[in-house]
């Protein structure tokens, strides 16, 4: 079994290697090869899952050290895997959803001449993500962490001829790097505190370290999570990342990559539990982001960006839950899984819509598509219902638990967090309904594309619809499946631990309140977009709307402070280097040269001048002699 874990990671990695180095021979077979290897990986995951189910709750974890990676003095990093229920959940989600997206991409990217490379990148992404969740130490996790960043860089910037895509890719990587900085500092702190950074020894002995150190570690981990999971203040890359092909958005920015932050916090639960201050920071970030993302999602007319805002918001829920400690870990992961299903479905649906609409992304130019794309409509609709938390669907179960847990935090804090979560639910209902109405209902507002052709919406090919259907099943049933008998809770509990929260309001009240805000949100959206015709160009909107369209001015802030400031800094440094640092050097050289030039003039060729110097020298000598005598 142990060897299978290695294979699990190796399969997509091999795919990436073969596809990227294979050359044009693989252009035709490449997509299928990539998909096959993703599927193999999924199959291995299932085998391991079955094996794990055959064991008792506590013995399910599987550790395997493949080889010593960096053995230097007291510093030991191994390439080793740790497969427990938490990683297993992720493995299945990643490989499962990943395989579906591979399949979807076969259709979506069919006409792209560089699709071989695209599948290579997708496989690389899977491999990195698997490495991330399977690593048994933080350094190896870091490798996967950055590998994910690299793959997302390559995928977002896949259409490199578009400057916007290239810029978005760069931005994603850079913002992620800031987060990575947090992770690397966290690892350094772990090393200096514990002398190691393998999960087991660190997490077992977490409480032995001082709380200050633990808080620092936890905060750094939070920074890392913010980067990867697009949480405030490092959320700005996610919206731009929609420049990538839609399957990328589905895979990376919905189902897998952005969940890495949640994984990291959950995995490091022991550290966070021992650092309550850091936990407060985590829940704050989560709560702020869930509102932030939701508000941004409301204002975007680009369907993918609206969904990106939604992703941000949903991850905010997960982070919030993870920040609550053992009360929330399980629900964070549960929401993560259900979100993986419905958000992937939504994105794939959006991709399908764009596919049929000549790559138009502006929802104001959609409308009335339900007749033309029935499968897309149904699957997207199910995803929609799931995300807003329609009773009985996946989102309902997982989100409800999180809101409950937030209230259970207790005190003012609990009320604030719970309130924020409830408000977020309302806004979610609003913006998702908006997306739904604008896209599939109402009259046709189609506009001719750049070539002057009106789009001819049509249903997408089989390779694209099948994954959507499968994901729709997931969106509908996953939540129920997990919640019956607390299956998911029991599955994860041995790893993350669990405590029941003591909510000041009863579970039923929370559910009722959730339903209420849901209805309110949907109703407002209906009032705005369902009853009235929708203008094709966006109205100017209120100050908040305009701010939200610009990602609540975060980018402007970044631009003014970081980009401009950075440009000024580098430009002035270039100047300083040239004028000051090099100037000192060149100045020395020039002054030596100038001095010699001047000294040269003393050698004017007149014997009498030389005589004066000689005579002066003689005078000085005599003076010196006399002085020496006098002394």
């Amino acid at each position, binding site marked *: 079994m142990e060897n299978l874990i290695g294979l699990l990671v190796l399969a997509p990695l091999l795919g990436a290697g073969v596809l990227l180095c294979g050359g044009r021979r693989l252009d035709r077979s490449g997509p299928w090869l990539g998909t096959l290897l993703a599927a193999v990986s999924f199959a291995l995951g299932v085998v391991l899952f079955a094996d794990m189910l055959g064991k008792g709750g506590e013995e399910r974890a599987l550790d395997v050290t493949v080889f010593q990676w960096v053995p230097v003095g007291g510093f030991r990093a191994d390439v080793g895997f740790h497969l427990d229920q938490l990683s297993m959940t992720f493995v299945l989600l990643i490989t499962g959803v990943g395989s579906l997206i591979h399949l979807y991409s076969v259709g979506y990217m069919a006409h792209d001449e560089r699709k071989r490379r695209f599948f290579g990148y997708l496989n690389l992404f899977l491999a990195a993500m698997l490495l991330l969740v399977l690593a048994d130490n933080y350094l190896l996790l870091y490798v996967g962490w950055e590998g994910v960043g690299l793959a997302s860089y390559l995928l977002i910037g896949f259409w490199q001829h578009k400057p916007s895509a290239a810029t978005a890719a760069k931005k994603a990587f850079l913002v992620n790097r800031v987060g990575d900085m947090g992770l690397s500092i966290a690892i350094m702190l772990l090393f200096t505190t514990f002398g190691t950074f393998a999960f087991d020894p660190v997490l077992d002995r977490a409480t032995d370290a001082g709380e200050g150190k633990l808080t620092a570690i936890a905060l750094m981990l939070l920074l890392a999570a913010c980067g990867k999971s697009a949480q405030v203040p490092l959320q700005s890359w996610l919206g731009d990342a929609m420049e990538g092909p839609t399957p990328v958005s589905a895979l990376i920015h919905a189902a897998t990559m952005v969940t890495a932050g949640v994984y990291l916090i959950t995995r490091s639960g022991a550290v966070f539990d021992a650092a309550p201050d850091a936990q407060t920071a985590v829940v704050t970030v989560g709560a702020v982001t869930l509102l932030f993302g939701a508000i941004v999602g409301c204002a975007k007319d680009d369907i993918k960006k609206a969904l990106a805002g939604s992703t941000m918001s949903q991850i905010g829920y997960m982070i919030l839950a993870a920040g609550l400690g053992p009360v929330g870990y399980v629900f964070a992961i549960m929401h993560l899984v259900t979100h993986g299903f419905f958000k992937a479905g939504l994105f794939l649906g959006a991709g399908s819509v764009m596919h049929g609409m000549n790559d138009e992304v502006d929802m104001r130019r959609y409308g009335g598509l339900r007749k033309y794309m029935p499968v897309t409509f149904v699957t997207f609709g199910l995803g929609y219902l799931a995300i807003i938390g329609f009773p009985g669907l996946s989102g309902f179960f997982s989100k409800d638990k999180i809101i409950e847990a937030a209230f259970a935090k207790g005190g003012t804090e609990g009320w604030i967090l719970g309130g924020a979560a409830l408000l977020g639910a309302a806004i979610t209902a609003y913006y998702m309904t908006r997306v739904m109405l604008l896209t599939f209902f109402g009259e046709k507002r189609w506009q001719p594309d750049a070539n002057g052709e009106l789009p001819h919406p049509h249903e997408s090919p089989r390779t694209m619809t099948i994954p959507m259907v499968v994901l729709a099943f997931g969106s509908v049933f996953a939540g129920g499946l997990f919640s019956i008998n607390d299956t998911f809770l029991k599955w994860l509990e041995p790893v993350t631990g669990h405590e029941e929260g003591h909510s000041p309001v009863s579970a039923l009240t929370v559910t009722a309140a959730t339903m209420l805000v849901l209805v309110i949100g949907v109703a407002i959206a209906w009032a705005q977009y369902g009853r009235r015709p929708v203008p094709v160009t966006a109205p100017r909107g209120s100050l908040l709307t305009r701010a939200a369209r610009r990602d609540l001015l975060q980018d402007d802030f970044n631009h003014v402070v970081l980009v401009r400031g950075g440009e000024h800094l580098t430009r002035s440094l270039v100047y300083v280097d040239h004028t000051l640092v090099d100037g000192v050097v060149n100045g020395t050289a020039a002054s030596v040269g100038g001095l010699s030039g001047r000294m*040269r003039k003393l*050698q*004017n*060729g*007149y*014997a*009498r001048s030389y*005589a*004066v110097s000689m*005579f002066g020298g003689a005078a000085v000598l005599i003076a010196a002699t006399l002085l020496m005598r006098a002394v």
Partner: protein
Amino acid sequence: MNPVNYLYLAALLFTIGAAGVLIRRNAIVIFMCVELMLNACNLAFVTFARLHGNLDGQIIAFFTMVVAAAEVVVGLAIIVTIFRSRHSASVDDAGLLKL
């Protein structure tokens, strides 16, 4: 009077000669000034001989005279040669070695 005054005189003559060497351009005059300086030295030597009460100073002065004679002979020959080719006895014109 103290014979030291001869020394002062010698110093004065020496400096005047030196000034002439530095100021004048005519090689012949410069030579004459050099001679003046040598003579000043001789005067000093002779005075020293008197002060010390032996003849060594005079011997040195004597040798100086001989050497000065030799020097003048060669120097003036050089001046004449230079003058022949350059039509000038100015030391400032002899600057071929300058860059």
